[in-house]
């Protein structure tokens, strides 16, 4: 990094930050500067400035090493990526404009611009990388969370197990449901399995198809499958689609399903006087 530019920035940092802040407050698409308290904005602006300066004054080797830290810290601000990239561009713009104004730019001004660009480009790349790492991590964590949420077969009584289904069923989850169902039936020695779809927002032909296949598979391992928790609007839609659920015992609530399951296994819940 050019020593002259670095020292210029260092000497004029307060003004640079102020100009930069004004520029950023004009950004309509991000409300950070509008909704945060002045104190928070002040602190963030200062921190951002220090980060930028430290990145400009470092030797090349240390600079590359520190890039990552810089990006990780920026990501923590929670700004949108376009806003961050804008912030970086604006920061160099402000510096360039100020140097130009102060006639600080000598005949080598072209190279000054180049230096600024060389400084900001790796920052941009590093920021984009840092953001995509965060996104990828979030997506994969959510995927795992979804898988954990989905489809465990719960033994409720001897011979009776329930699988509560919550959320959207895609191809991947449908596979998982099938696996867990079959493993669970064998493991818990279930004779009746209740598939509870209370928490499934949409039952289209694909979901219905998966349910029918699951029930067939359960039958093959010697148990019965009941479909419970069918909300009235879902029942109507299934009928209109023309899907045949005649091979199923279906009930509107899990409770009714449980009573039937107990009856199928020759049991009942009775009230007793003690």
């Amino acid at each position, binding site marked *: 990094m050019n020593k002259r530019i670095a020292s210029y920035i260092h000497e004029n940092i307060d003004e640079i930050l102020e100009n930069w802040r004004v520029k950023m407050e004009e950004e309509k698409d991000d409300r950070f500067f509008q909704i945060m308290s002045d104190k928070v904005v002040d602190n963030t602006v200062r921190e951002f400035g220090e980060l930028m300066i430290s990145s400009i004054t470092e030797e090349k080797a240390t600079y590359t090493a520190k890039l990552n830290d810089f990006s990780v810290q920026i990501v923590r601000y929670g700004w949108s990526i376009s806003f961050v990239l804008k912030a970086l561009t604006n920061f160099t713009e402000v510096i360039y404009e100020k140097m130009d104004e102060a006639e600080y730019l000598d005949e080598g001004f072209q190279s000054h611009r180049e230096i600024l660009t060389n400084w900001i480009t790796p920052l941009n790349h590093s920021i984009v990388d840092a953001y995509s790492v965060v996104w990828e991590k979030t997506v994969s964590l959510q995927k795992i969370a979804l898988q954990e949420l989905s489809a465990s077969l719960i033994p409720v009584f001897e011979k009776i197990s329930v699988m509560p289904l919550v959320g*959207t069923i895609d191809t991947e989850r449908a596979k998982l449901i099938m696996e867990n169902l079959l493993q669970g039936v064998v493991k818990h020695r279930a004779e009746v399995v209740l598939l509870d779809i209370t928490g499934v927002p949409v039952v289209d032909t694909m979901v219905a198809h998966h349910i029918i296949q699951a029930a067939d598979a359960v039958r093959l391992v010697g148990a019965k499958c009941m479909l419970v928790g069918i909300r009235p609007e879902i029942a109507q839609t299934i009928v209109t689609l023309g899907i045949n659920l005649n091979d199923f015992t279906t009930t509107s609530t899990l409770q009714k399903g449980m009573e039937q399951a107990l009856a199928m296994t020759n049991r009942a819940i009775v009230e007793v006087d003690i």
Partner: protein
Amino acid sequence: MNLRSSVDIITEWDIVAARQLGRNEAKDVGFGTVDQARITTAISELARNIYLYAGKGKIEIRQVTEGNLRGLLVIASDKGPGIVDVRKVMEDGYTTSGGLGAGLPGVKRLMDDFKIETVIGEGTTISASKLLR
């Protein structure tokens, strides 16, 4: 009135996004729970067909008025292979993918109005609408 919005169907999760958009629009028009479920399911069928048979396409949702009735128009369009025999795909149980084959005839029953335009090798556009009565 002609408010419109659309979702590109590229991945399986876009089907969920299209559905969500449809549900919100249906609520906005004032449809009750049963009709909301019908519309959402119809969108789900059309979006999945795009995903399965055309690879990618678009679901567009428009709020419409007919006379003094408000309603929703769903347009599913793709530049996929097109449908060879339109009469056949409207038969219950006809499928080329080992599915239930209940999607298109189902959508027709779920909605009030249903229209397929398709050209082999160029693509398919299916429009389905429902009015709030």
